[in-house]
């Protein structure tokens, strides 16, 4: 893993539209400040109904989220940094176009014991 100064984007021909244009210049979302990179989103019925009329990047997020997608996957899908994906997802969630599924952590900030046990069962069954 290396620091990538967007060499990949240049190799692909580069992004033409700057990231700030997607988010109207905002770098922070109001509701999504604690939305972690692994948070999952799913399209709502409202989102799917409204998708054809949404801006292209928002439409792409909603349509991809018929299968659960993490914030990281949204970032990869649009080829934008996580912070940009977080702003777009927060806006779509605020309009009820997406449902957001956050991690379940205990008071110590770590995953609940029952989740670790389910994870262990799932890995052993692989």
């Amino acid at each position: 893993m290396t620091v990538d100064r967007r060499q990949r984007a240049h190799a692909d021909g580069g992004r033409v539209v700057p990231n700030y244009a997607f988010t109207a210049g905002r770098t922070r979302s109001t509701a999504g400040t604690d939305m972690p990179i692994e948070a999952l989103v799913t399209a709502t019925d409202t989102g799917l109904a409204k998708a054809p009329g949404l801006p292209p990047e928002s439409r792409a997020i909603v349509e991809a989220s018929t299968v659960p997608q993490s914030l990281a996957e949204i970032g990869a899908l649009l080829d934008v940094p996580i912070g940009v994906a977080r702003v777009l997802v927060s806006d779509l969630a605020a309009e009820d176009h997406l449902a957001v599924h956050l991690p379940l952590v205990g008071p110590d900030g770590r995953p609940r014991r029952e989740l670790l046990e389910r994870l262990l069962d799932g890995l052993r069954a692989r």
Partner: protein
Amino acid sequence: MDSEPGDRRVSAGGTATREARDLLPLKILIAGGFGVGKTTLVAALSEVPPLSTEQQMTSLSDGVDDTSIVPEKTTTTVAMDFGRVTVDDSLVLYLFGTPGQSRFWFMWDELARGAVGAVVLVDLRRIDDSFAAIDYFENRGLPFVVALNSFPGTDGVDVDVVRDALAVPARCPIRYVDARDDASCTDVLITLVEHSLTRSA
């Protein structure tokens, strides 16, 4: 929307999701020095080809420009490869390969928050590259296991020698792994989750 205690699903409106059990994400960090095999391990476990995402991180510049006494903010873009493992009908595990350069570790608190734990991959020919990651997870109290990636010429190295050399605590498991092999990598994750459970209240 009715909300059970502990249900952290967020939906501004009230459209119910269709899942019988609510979706829950989990994450494990895959750390280690450059070229140690992080992406290989993620690829071996992931059900989709590893994806890459970028995170912009802002930090104070470290005084290269000493003509100014005003600290200058610099933005660094860090690329991470990640993969996905569907665990059961509602649990989805994400594996994040994290850049190993020590100067970035202070920025990883956001990524480490809420993680199941971390796998620190070690190339026995360059074990110094793994110090920063081990030091970081030890300091943050995040459960981790050390996985020795098998490279030519590294067979038969005694685990206790590695434990001493890297100052790995006795409670922390050390395992050999073949980062190309799904079953071998799965064993390492199982070891990590078992270790994490022993440290869970």
